């Protein structure tokens, strides 16, 4: 790891100021991804601005939305009674990610900022446009079993690794960010980016902007929800495919639905068309299968991940079944 300057701050403004002063400076909160990347010389910030002392850990109901501070720990959110009661999908998705120890370190803001786990991004001896624009995409013609099937470009086929974000995009969350020019709100679905020609940019956060909170509007998805994560071992592994499913069912008719997928795209993948196909239909396997087929439209596979074209819809169906009949 290179030497870097280390400062601690206790207000968002001080943090933004500190990070603005130096080129190649980064905020650090849990550090679970950044420290890992720094050890491997994938990210080499010259300055770290420790934001852990900023009071942004709250989880509370504010009017008709739940506001979660950016520094709330993943475990804290997952175990929060408020979240378990009103946003069970979020709690499930958090517990599906990483390990108990990591969830005790990782923050909500940091979770959103985590980089892809693409094997080529993670090895400085390999080509990767995200790590070093212009080097080429190693995964495109390489070992791409874990890679994207939606929204890819010739420059990058990496996937976003978070589980939490899949639930948040389904729940219509809003990101609150503080920057040199003040505060702004970004709809969650517009926070992360598709790779396009600039895969080095994971998201639309501006330089020196700090995530301060996530806002989730109240919803009716308190019972019929399920986060289903398919992975290569039973726990502590990134998603091969994951599905966040939330249904509002009355008299066996789907009144409202939310559906998003992980492990398939450079951003949390919201399945809006499939949601439309669910609403007003009976909560049956036939309905779910139809929605899953709609969800997969436009998917494009690569050499090692063609199975996702089948596993994807199957996982959607199963997640919806589990949501419709919670244990």
């Amino acid at each position, binding site marked *: *790891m*290179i*030497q870097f300057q280390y400062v601690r701050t206790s207000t968002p403004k001080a943090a933004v100021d500190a990070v603005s002063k130096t080129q190649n400076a980064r905020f650090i909160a849990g550090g679970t991804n950044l420290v890992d990347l720094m*050890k491997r*010389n994938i990210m080499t910030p010259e300055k770290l601005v420790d934001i852990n002392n900023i009071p942004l850990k709250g989880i509370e109901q504010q009017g008709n939305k739940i506001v979660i501070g950016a520094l709330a720990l993943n475990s804290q959110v997952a175990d929060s009674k408020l979240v*378990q009661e009103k946003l*069970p999908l979020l*709690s*499930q998705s958090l*517990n599906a990610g990483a390990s108990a120890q990591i969830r005790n370190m990782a923050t909500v803001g940091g979770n959103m900022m985590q980089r892809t*786990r693409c*094997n*080529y991004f993670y*090895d400085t*001896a*390999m080509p990767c446009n995200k790590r070093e624009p212009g080097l080429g995409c*190693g995964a495109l*013609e*390489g*070992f791409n*079993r874990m890679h994207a099937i939606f929204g890819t470009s010739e420059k990058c086929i990496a996937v976003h690794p978070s589980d939490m974000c899949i639930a948040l995009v389904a729940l219509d969350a809003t990101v609150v960010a503080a920057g040199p020019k003040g505060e702004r709100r970004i709809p969650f679905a517009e926070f992360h980016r598709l790779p396009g020609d600039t895969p080095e940019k994971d998201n639309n956060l501006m330089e020196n902007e700090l995530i301060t909170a996530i806002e989730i509007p109240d919803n009716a998805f308190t019972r019929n929800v*399920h986060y*289903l994560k*398919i992975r*290569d*071992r*039973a*726990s*502590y*592994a*990134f998603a*091969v495919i994951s599905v966040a499913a939330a249904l509002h069912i009355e008299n066996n008719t789907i009144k409202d639905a939310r559906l998003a997928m992980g492990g398939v795209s450079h951003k949390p993948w919201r399945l809006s068309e499939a949601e439309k196909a669910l609403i007003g239909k009976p909560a049956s396997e036939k309905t779910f299968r139809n929605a899953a087929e709609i969800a997969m439209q436009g998917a494009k596979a690569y050499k090692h991940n063609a*199975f996702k074209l*089948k*596993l994807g819809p*199957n*996982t959607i*169906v*199963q997640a919806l079944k*589990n949501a419709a009949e919670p*244990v």
Partner: protein
Amino acid sequence: MLRNPCESKEKSLNQQIMNEAFFDKKDYKSLDRVDGRLKVTGAARYSAEYQLPGLVYAVLVESKIAKGTIKSIDSRAAERAPGVLAVISHVNAIKVPGYQTSNQHPSEPPVNGQPLRAFYDNNVYYNGQPIVAVVASTLEKAQFGASLVKIQYEKEQHKTDFDANMDNAVLPAQAKKNPKSPVADYNRGDKNAFVNAPVKIDAEYVLPTEVHNPMELQAITAYWEADDRLTLYDKVQGTQPTQQHFAKEWNLPPENVKVIATFVGGAFGNGLHNWPHETAAIIAAKQVKKPVKLVLTREQMFTMVGYRPYTWQKIQMGATKDGKLVAINHESVGQTSSYEEFTESTLQQTRMMYASPNVNTRYRILKLDVSTPIWMRGPGEATGAFALESAMDEMAFSLGMDPIEFRLMNYTDSDPDKQLPWSTKYLKECYDAGKEKIGWDKRKMQPGSVRSGEWLVGYGMGTGTFGANRGAAAVRAQLDADGNLLMQCAITDIGPGTGTAMVQIASNTTGISTDKIIFQLGNSQFPKAGNQGGSSTVNSVGPAVQAACNALKEQLKTMIASKGGSNAAFASAKKEDIVFVNGQVQIAGNDSAKVDIRTLFKQNNIQKMETTQESRPDENRNKYSMYAFSMHFAEVHVHPLTGQVCVKKVVCCGDAGTIISPKTAANQMIGGATGGIGMALTESAVIDHRFGRYVTKDFAEYHVPVHADVPHIEVFFVNKPDTLADPVGSKGLGEIAIIGVAPAIANAIFNATGKRIRELPITPDKLI
């Protein structure tokens, strides 16, 4: 709240109670691990945990091409970085005296070729080869220094793709020289019997590269105490083999090389060889004149300390319609490096496990631009068992027979390969008890017939076998006036609980309570021992413990008898009857024959009584065929939509002779089953052949099983002594614990789904 596929609220059996009950009537009782306290308090010191004065750190820089030569190494920035003491490569490394000749490991298999030499020349043989060591005052400074080294290469065309190059596989050189070599082509009976067999199976099986990945990273602390005296705290499976290796490499008398490996954080075979990183640390310590600590990174564990080789197999199996095997043809190709021929016993069990009159085996190796493999738990036998036991299941299904019935139909009461009687074989007992414990009667022949909710339920089984190996070993035993027994042996304990088992053998032989016995190990200065490997430790060191204890008894007997009088009973006492109780020597069943040890030692003017005894394999090895056997049953649940596999239950039975330490033995079986779950379902090290470089090379990408993958595992043992194999009656079980587990799971998945997966690991994508 969770909906893990393996989630189950039912309380499973209490492992320990069950195992205790099984051993109730036996000689050996469950004993808590003698080093347990050190391990649970963090006091156990592993190789990277000796804080020597002046200790500095070395970090290795590895090659990033798969083949070629080093054009230049720009080390200027690294040399100038703060705290960096040396940047060492072939350009400036001191000459290793042993490199002028061969540095073949004394305990190695007869491999051919030249083991990789650290910083020897500018050749690059594979991607991930150690090229440079950066030595610095702190770990962080060494790591940073390593990141500054720039290496330019002249690249050459490399070959790492097994499938694309399989046609280039060759007969190993040792088999060319010696047609009786175990890896030479083998034929029994009619070579062409398969062709005319009434029922046939013809299938290919692939096992990907697997990596040992013990939890402790390979580590060495090298310290030149003088110009000609070297001390190594080294993560190895044999202290004396390592001592001999480096004595030869550095042209030193063996007694000048001390190797300490008191605690070894797992190894599973990768410590059976001495590797270039060890020499790199020794070179660095010599050059900077300070003790040097070198710990590999997790990625480096994939390329510097061996792995289980990628292996292709083909089995042709023929049987009569009523289920008698007619022929087995088994071919195997395993990968090796370009510079060394690694071979293993992938095909051995095909020759001896079943009573097929006609057997052909053909073993080949494929040289690729990769590092050299090394035995990984169960080694080749585990690989071979995946193919053989899958094929047996396929054949049983074709015949419409129960897989156990089919195996019993072809059971053999003597070794058809060596044509010798077994020393012992109790596999039928394993089948019988295992069937009941797994609930085999719930199994239906037709795949997909049993369900639990949405999940498909399947049952499968696999058999394992491994040679009951035994080598020479010696133990020093010292009895003090308080009746405490101290024993020493150079053997290591990589986890099975060697100290615990040896204390139990000593206690069982002498009657001394286990808390008064200490067994010290992991030091090359202790009496003779080879590697801990090949399931041979208890069978080799155990008899030496027994011999040393008996020798002490003889010495005591002589000493007591020489005093005459009431002690005359000792002169004629059998050594079995002499016991040590509460500081007294007694004769069992003779209340008047008691001698206080302290008084006796005082009378004879000694503080302690000591002996060193060596034990060696005997001629029985030529008269009997000696194998340990195992049986594994698995119940799996497979989700038809998502392909998720949940191993619900595993039952393992070991036929491993007398079980010395029931508690640690059961744990070892559980560990083997866990390794088998990884082999079957999760583990695979993948190379991107465009670069010849691994792309799955840490614990996030190379999946070893976690808690959630492993159910309760029911273990039981036949526990009948095999005194032909060795005097303690034990056959090793480290290998049989894993051999046969992967096919049991693959067979269970077939039974659940009707999908026969012949390429491991069986990840969800293969089942949808």
